[in-house]
């Protein structure tokens, strides 16, 4: 069966680990070196879900920004899902993710939206309090992830795929 392709845009402040999450998910690799993304990098992976048709996620890894500019708006067009990414060690990156959520809602009112709070391997340095995420969970699916260790990475993409195919 041919997998249905869905455009998934990854947005979040710079340095939160969007590219690393894609590398971990698609290529099972991780690099310690930070290399800023210019424009967009597109990758894809098929996700098999039990009892459902296979789903192909076309991942748009968009350059990090704390707000949506005209260029990012261009990239978001046609997306079925948004993965907001924040860095648990930088609380302001969570604020940026929520800001991006507000901005993108008007552009993509029907998109499935999930939040990944990345760098769980550095949980000892997290500024984001557990209570804050507990509160956010009331309105938004939230996953703690670590692109470095792989913790929670499959789960967050599987969650999106499930939402896209249900």
């Amino acid at each position, binding site marked *: 069966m041919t997998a249905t*392709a869905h455009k998934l845009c990854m947005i979040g402040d710079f340095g939160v680990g969007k590219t690393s999450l894609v590398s971990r998910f698609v290529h099972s690799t991780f690099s310690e070196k930070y290399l800023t993304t210019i424009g967009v990098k597109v990758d894809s992976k098929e996700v098999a879900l039990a009892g459902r048709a296979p789903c192909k996620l076309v991942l748009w890894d968009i350059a990090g920004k704390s707000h949506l500019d005209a260029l990012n708006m261009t990239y978001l067009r046609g997306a079925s899902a948004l993965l907001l990414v924040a860095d648990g060690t930088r609380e302001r990156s969570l604020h940026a993710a929520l800001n991006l959520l507000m901005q993108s809602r008007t552009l993509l009112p029907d998109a499935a939206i999930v939040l990944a709070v990345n760098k769980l391997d550095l949980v*000892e340095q997290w500024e984001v309090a557990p209570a804050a995420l507990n509160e956010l969970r009331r309105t938004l699916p939230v996953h703690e992830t670590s692109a470095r260790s792989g913790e929670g990475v499959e789960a967050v993409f599987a969650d999106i795929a499930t939402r896209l195919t249900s």
Partner: protein
Amino acid sequence: MTALDFGSVPERVELYLRELFWQRVNPLLLCFDAGWELRDVRGDAAHYGLDGNDPGQGVQTLRDLFIGLPLHEPQDVPFVELANGRSAHLHLIPDGDIFYVLMLDADTERDRRRVQQQLGHEEALASQAKTKAIGQLKQIRSELERQHSRLEEAHALKNALIATLSHEFRTPLTSIFGYLQLAERRAGDEPAMREALHAVRRNASYLFTLAENLLEYGRGESTAPLLNPTPVDLESLTRDLDAMFRPLAEEKGLEFRVALKLDEVAEPVFDEIRLRQILVNLLSNAVRYTRRGEVTAEIVWRAQTLGIDITDTGIGIAAAHRDGVFVPFNRGGHAGSKGAGLGLSIVKRMVEQMHGTLAFDSEVGRGSSFRVMLPRARERPAAHADDAIAPRFWLQGRSILVADDDSDVAHLLEALLGDLGFRVRVVADAQSAVLEAMAGRPDVLLIDVELSGLSGNAAVYKLRSRGYKGRIVTLSATATAEAREAALRAGADHYLTKPLNVEQFVHVMQQAASTGWSGENHEPDDA
């Protein structure tokens, strides 16, 4: 000035521009029908990572780039990083039943932007890290301050311990003195017996002074003195001093005199224990450091003030040691002396507590003279300390989930917790701990921080970020304030370190189990 457009550019310049543009953007044009069937390819396909011989193979990738976008409208997707690492601007140009995809090289522009952006981002990250580091430094400072106050607490605890111990000395010593008097009276003229009893009295007297001094020292300098002023029978006090020191002085062949002058009709009111101790300490020193000659004490009650003069013809105190005479545990004042070196420092402290003055003169080889003036105190009821009531908890039937990947430690914890009355369940990894805790809601979760895979702290964080309200105790081999702080920040209520201090462990478990799920407040407690 004439406008510059294609029509007005000289042919040679136009040609130059075309070549330049072509060279820089290296265009690739692909023509598709409405069903994404490739009709035509023009340009360097390999430059964009497409197979030059079979560019159709990369069509799917191109197709993915236009998912969700209407193909009958022009589309412009700038700076797309391609599979071969190159960057391209992608344009979709509809033309009736067909459409074109035009790819223009954006490598140079991407690289230029990347350098700028990378610098900017790294600078911003460094600045955030700097702000955080400053915050951490502030935290370290306040931690140091906390430790300082903990040290002060420990100091106070030590003083309390000394006070308790020395207090315990006093009762038996009092009894020893009483029986000594009795024994001396009955010993008659038996010289060996008298000598033995003198030796016992001398040493008991020294012990008594030491115990009294320790008691006072243990009260601590920072503690506000609890004075207990009562009317003092100065005549009785003088008799006691005479009875206590005359035998010691005479034994050394010293002349000993204690004189009392009462020139004031008002009743003398002082904290009697302190007054007695001032006199005992000064006389004890005088007798101890005088080899020949005399020791005299003159006590004068006059004009609402008690004057005390203790004079001896002893070894004296060198000028170099005068400043250190009142420093605790300083024995430099009397060379070769025995004793704890507390006596004079305590005299000074007590005189100050009683709002009096203390002065002394001394000359090496000729003796010393100490002068104390104490104003009459006002009577006041003694204060009472509150008794702390230790809480007791009943753990029978409480449930606990233990997460530790070291089976030996897990068994030990299971046994200890079983003895405490807990129903224990053990898991070996953090992921299971999260699942079991959410499902089973144990009264307490005891989790090792250094678990392989997902760390204990990450598991605690995940639980708390899902609203888990149960009590969590983390166990770690890292005994640092930072590690403890990190665990509590992740959501633990208590932080214990290995090797286990069993008493503390039991205490923490009792505390955790006593609040359990009923406690909505998750402010971490000190453990």
